[in-house]
C-alpha cells in the first residue's frame, strides 16, 4: 500500500527544473479546481498548495522566510505581487486575487504568480537540491493541507 495516495504520480524519475515543476503544479491545480478557473486563479492555488506543503514539512517560519525572499526577488519584474498575500492562516485571500486579476488582467497576474512559484522552488532547491524539492512539495500537496486555522 502506498501510504501517500497519489504521491508517486507527480514524482518523476528525473527531477524537473523549477520552471517545469512550477508549470506542472499550476496545471495540476487547474485540473483539481472545483470549477473552471482562470490561469491566474490556478497559479494562485498552486502557490498556496506549495506554500502549505512546505509549511507542513519545513515549518511555517521556514516557508514564510522562503516565500518572503521569493516575493522580494520577483516583485521587481512583477509589481502586482505586492498586492497579493499568501499566508498560512489567511484563507480569505480569494478576494485579493480576484481584485488583482480585475486590476492587472489574467495574463499578467498568472505570469507574476507562476514566476513567484518558480523562484520559490529555485530558492528551496538551492538549499536542499532539486530532487528533494519535488519530494517535499509532493508530500504536502498530496497528503492534503491541515487546516491550522481551525486550531485555537
Amino acid at each position, binding site marked *: 500500500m502506498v501510504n501517500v495516495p497519489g504521491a508517486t504520480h507527480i514524482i518523476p524519475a528525473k527531477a524537473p527544473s523549477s520552471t517545469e515543476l512550477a508549470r506542472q503544479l499550476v496545471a495540476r491545480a487547474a485540473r483539481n479546481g472545483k470549477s473552471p478557473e482562470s490561469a491566474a486563479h490556478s497559479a494562485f492555488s498552486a502557490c498556496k498548495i506549495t506554500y502549505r506543503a512546505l509549511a*507542513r514539512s519545513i*515549518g511555517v517560519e521556514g516557508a514564510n522566510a522562503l516565500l518572503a525572499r521569493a516575493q522580494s526577488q520577483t516583485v521587481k519584474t512583477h509589481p502586482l505581487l505586492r498586492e497579493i498575500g499568501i499566508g498560512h492562516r489567511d484563507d480569505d485571500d480569494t478576494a485579493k486575487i480576484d481584485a488583482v486579476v480585475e486590476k492587472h488582467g489574467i495574463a499578467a497576474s498568472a505570469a507574476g504568480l507562476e514566476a513567484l512559484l518558480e523562484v520559490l522552488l529555485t530558492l528551496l532547491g538551492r538549499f536542499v537540491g532539486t530532487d528533494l524539492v*519535488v*519530494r517535499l512539495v*509532493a508530500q504536502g500537496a498530496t497528503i492534503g493541507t491541515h487546516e491550522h486555522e481551525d486550531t485555537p
Partner: protein
Amino acid sequence: MTTKKSRAKPAIRPPDIGIPNIATGVPGLDAVLGGGVPEFSMNLIAGNPGAGKTTLAQQIMFANATEERPALYFTVLGEPTLKMLRYQKEFGFFDPALVGSAVQYVNLSDEAVDYDLSVVLARMIEEVERARPRVVVVDSFRIAMGQGGAPSAPGKMSLDAFIQRLAVEMTSWEVTSFIIGDSNGRGYRSPMFTVADAVFFLTQVADRNSVVRKLQVLKVRGRASMPGLHTFRITKQGLQVFPRIPEQQFERRPMPTLRLTTGIPGLDEAMGGGIPAGDALMLGGPAGSGKTTFATQFAAEGLRRGESVVIVVFEEYPEEYLSRAKARNQDIAAMIEAGNFRLIYLRPLDLSVDETLAEILEAVAEIGASRVVIDSLSGFQIALAPAFREDFRESLYRLVGALTATGVTIFMTTEIAGGYPEAAFTTERVSFITDDIIVQRFIEIDGVLRTVLAIHKMRGSAHSHDFLTYEVSAQGAVVGGPLRNYRGILTGVPEQQRQLVREGHEGLTERESMVLDTLVRLGGASRIILAEHVGVAMEELADTITRLELLGYTRTTRTNGKEIFHAIAQSST
C-alpha cells in the same frame, strides 16, 4: 570503512527474549544495545548540541522506513527543517527517493510556539493515525530537559503531562519512537529519562587538538546492553559506533597448539620452535635495530605459507612501507597481489582504540588473517587522541585481548628508549599484556657496533636465554648463535672472556663452525666435496651455507656452472 547506500531494509531480528529487535542501521550500535532497539519502545537520544543526535535519529529512521510502514519525523523545536535537510542530505544513508513517501517530515514548531503542548500532541496523533508509521522521531525536546513539570501557562498542558501522554500514545500506536533532547547533562531528573525505555547519551569532548565523540547507553529495558562509553565517528556515511568490547571477544576461539615460523633464520630455534599460535609477541628495540625488518619477515613468511596477513602501520606511509618490504622480500609483491594481505594505515591524531580495533578486526575477518603485525606501538600511542593516550595500557590491553580472541598471532614492535637494564618498552609499562617479549639492542665490541637480541619472556614455552647475535642486511634479518664468550653485555660494552674462548666462531652453530673450518682448510669446495668432508648429506648443507653467506663468512663463485664455496678472511679478535 564504508556503508553502502542501500534500499534494502534491515529485517526485524528474531526475538532473543520475547520482544523483537529493530536493527538500527548504525554499524556497531546493535552490538552495544544487546541486539538492537526493542520494537515499539520509546527511546530518548540525549546529548549536547552538535553531538550527533539528529544524525543518529535520521540514520535509524532511513534504515527502517518503508512505504508500507513509513517513518514520521516531527520537528517541534530544534534545528530548522530546511537547514537540517540541507545537511542530512549529505550523508550516505539519506535517500532522497524515500522522502515524501517512506520518510515524511512534519514541522510542528508553529504549534509549539503559538499554542500549547496539547495542540502539538493532537497534531502528532492525527499524523500518526493517518500514516501508520513504524518509526516516529520527535526533534527536539530541549525544553523538556530544562523545565519542570509546571504548565507553561494556566490551563495549558504541563510538560510532564505531555511526556506521559506521548509515551502512552506512542506505545498504543505500535511505533518505535525516538525523542531527541538537548541536554547539558543536568537533565537526568527530567521525566523523559524515567519514561523512556532506552536512553542514548551522546557527548563530544575536545581535548587539546582532538575531538572525541562518545555514546553511552544509559538504559535499555529488557536488554543486556554493553556498559561504558563507546566512541563513535561521524563520516560521510553517517555514524559508526566502535563498541568497547568487540563481539568477537565473547566468542573466544580455541587456540591450536601450533607454532608459527617467523621466517627469520635462527629465531624459531631460539624460541623453542617458533611463535605459539595465538600469542601476542612484542619486539622492542632502539631506533634502527631492525624491528620493522623482523616484522615484515614474519608477515612475508605467513604469506609464503599461504596464510593471510594484516599489517597495521602508523609511522610510515603505506607506499614507503611496502616498497621497503618488497626490497627485502622480493616475493612479497606477488603475494600481496594474491589478495590475502591487507595494509592498514592509521595516522590521524584523534584515533580511538576502539576505532583502530574495529578496523583491524574487520580486515582480519575479511581475509581470514592468521597473522597481524602492528608496527609500531609507539606510533599507535601517538596516533591516539590525547584522552586515550592517558589510558594507553588499558587501551592496549583491550586491543590485544580482542585480537588474540579471534585466534590471530600478533607481532608488535615498539621502540625502546634508554639503557638496556632499565629500558622501558613505552612510556607506559605494557609488557604484561604480551605473551612473548624479544628485546634487541646495540652493543660495542672492539669499536664495532653489533646487534644482539634476547628472549625475555615466552609464556608456557622453553626458549633460549642467551644473547643472540643477529644481522640485518638488504636480504633481511638472520639470527646467529649465542654471544657466550663475553661478559657485561648488559652494559653495552662487553668484554671478551679470553680464558673461555673455545675453538669455533662467534655466533655460529657447531655445524656452521665445522663448515667454515673446512672451507678455510680446503681454500674452497663444491657442495659435494664439502658434504663429504663435513660428513653430512648435501641437502642438509643448504641452510648452513645460506646463513654463512648472509653473515658474511663465505661467498660463492661459479666455475663451469658449478658452485664453489669460499671462506672470507675474518679479522681475528
